């Protein structure tokens, strides 16, 4: 086993170009577990821990660019939490404080687990993933195209997630998740809901109930007319219908964590609650 520890982005891209068989190691909260359990063979790893550029975030106009190795702790605290509240709420539900100090948003994207907690939020925000490689340079991929399937992303060999760009929207945001306890759980179902007051609509995405994060298009269309914009007034019946339509977008499976039936029900309840929280009677 070899671990390369580049200290800047160019060094990381060069290392990946030189060793196309290398695996990128960010916070290690998924990869190290696989290694410790013998589910992954030792090989060549490129550690991003010392690459400073990837740890930073910036705001230009109404857009944030969040570096790939910004941790969940970084997302749940300070300015990012105020600017993109749903991302902070999702980050707060990940693992434990020790895990949140290590795990990164770029790792969540590149691992592309169906249960990745930031992924439904990024989907609802129509985030853009910035990727880079030594040979092809930078490219930007919509998060919807980036997440290809369970643990599969659009990353090419030798390519790295550099950052993710998300809009700063006006209006409330919610992230709700169901698990077996309040910490240290892999999500059974998750719902991200963001309001876009400027455009007069809601955007809703689901986690852990499909091969990747799924958008609830029918529920979004319904909310465009069922909610009064910009006052965000809606009836209690609208909340029930929004929950029902959102559950209709889920494509859950039975597995060791929950049944498909339970997951669909959890989505319906979470979507209804999230809708009630972002709208006014």
């Amino acid at each position: 086993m070899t671990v390369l520890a580049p200290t800047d982005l160019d060094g990381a891209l060069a290392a990946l170009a030189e060793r196309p068989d290398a695996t990128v190691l960010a916070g290690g909260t998924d990869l190290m577990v696989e290694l410790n359990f013998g589910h992954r063979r030792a090989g060549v790893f490129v550690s991003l821990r010392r690459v400073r550029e990837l740890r930073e975030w910036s705001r230009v106009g109404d857009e944030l660019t969040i570096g790939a190795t910004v941790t969940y702790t970084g997302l749940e605290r300070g300015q990012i939490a105020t600017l993109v509240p749903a991302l902070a709420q999702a980050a707060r539900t990940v693992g434990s404080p020790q895990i949140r100090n290590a795990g990164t948003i770029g790792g969540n994207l590149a691992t592309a687990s169906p249960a990745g907690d930031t992924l439904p939020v990024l989907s609802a925000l129509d985030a853009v993933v910035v990727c880079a490689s030594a040979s092809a340079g930078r490219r930007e991929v919509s998060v919807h195209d980036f997440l290809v399937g369970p643990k599969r992303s659009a990353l090419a060999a030798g390519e790295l997630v550099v950052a993710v760009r998300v809009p700063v929207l006006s209006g409330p945001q919610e992230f709700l998740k169901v698990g077996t306890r309040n910490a240290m759980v892999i999500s059974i179902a998750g719902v991200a809901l963001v309001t876009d007051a400027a455009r007069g609509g809601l955007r809703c995405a689901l986690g852990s109930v499909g091969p990747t994060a799924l958008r609830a298009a029918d529920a979004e269309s319904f909310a465009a007319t069922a909610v009064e914009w910009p006052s965000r007034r809606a009836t209690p019946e609208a909340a029930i219908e929004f929950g029902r339509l959102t559950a209709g977008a889920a494509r859950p499976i039975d597995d060791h964590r929950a049944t498909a039936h339970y997951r669909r029900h959890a989505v319906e309840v979470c979507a209804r609650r999230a809708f009630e929280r972002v709208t006014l009677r």
Partner: protein
Amino acid sequence: MTDQAIAITVNGERRKGRTEARTTLADFLRDELALTGTHVGCEHGVCGACTVLLDGEAVRSCLVLAVQADGADITTIEGIGPEPGRLGPVQQAFMECHGLQCGFCTPGFVVSVTSFLAEQPAPTDDEIREMLSGNICRCTGYQGIVAAVHRATELIEEATA
């Protein structure tokens, strides 16, 4: 397997060593540096017994490779007290409030609590349970631990008053 050279600062002391790339920081601390206070429980990031401070932040040392920590500043349970043989406020509080029984999980709890109280000096019961959600204790039922965290806030306040 190829050895890689690393240099880390542990409890204020500069330490150099060579290690296999596969070695976790937890194993390096225990086997190479003989700092066996850091315990290895589950080895998949759930139990929290291996918690250390890495550049000031509480992390699981079983999920960090020693070579990743090259150049980092690490605090283990051995460096939590003011000097060898004297207890720090969190350790004192765990002793007073029966925050431990068998003691296996205790180093992880003490390191975690030390880090959390630095950021949140007066937590509520709920906040304490949230901050300790990544540390598992199979003996105490947590009542003594929660009491110990409250007591630690008093001891820290007294010490700084």
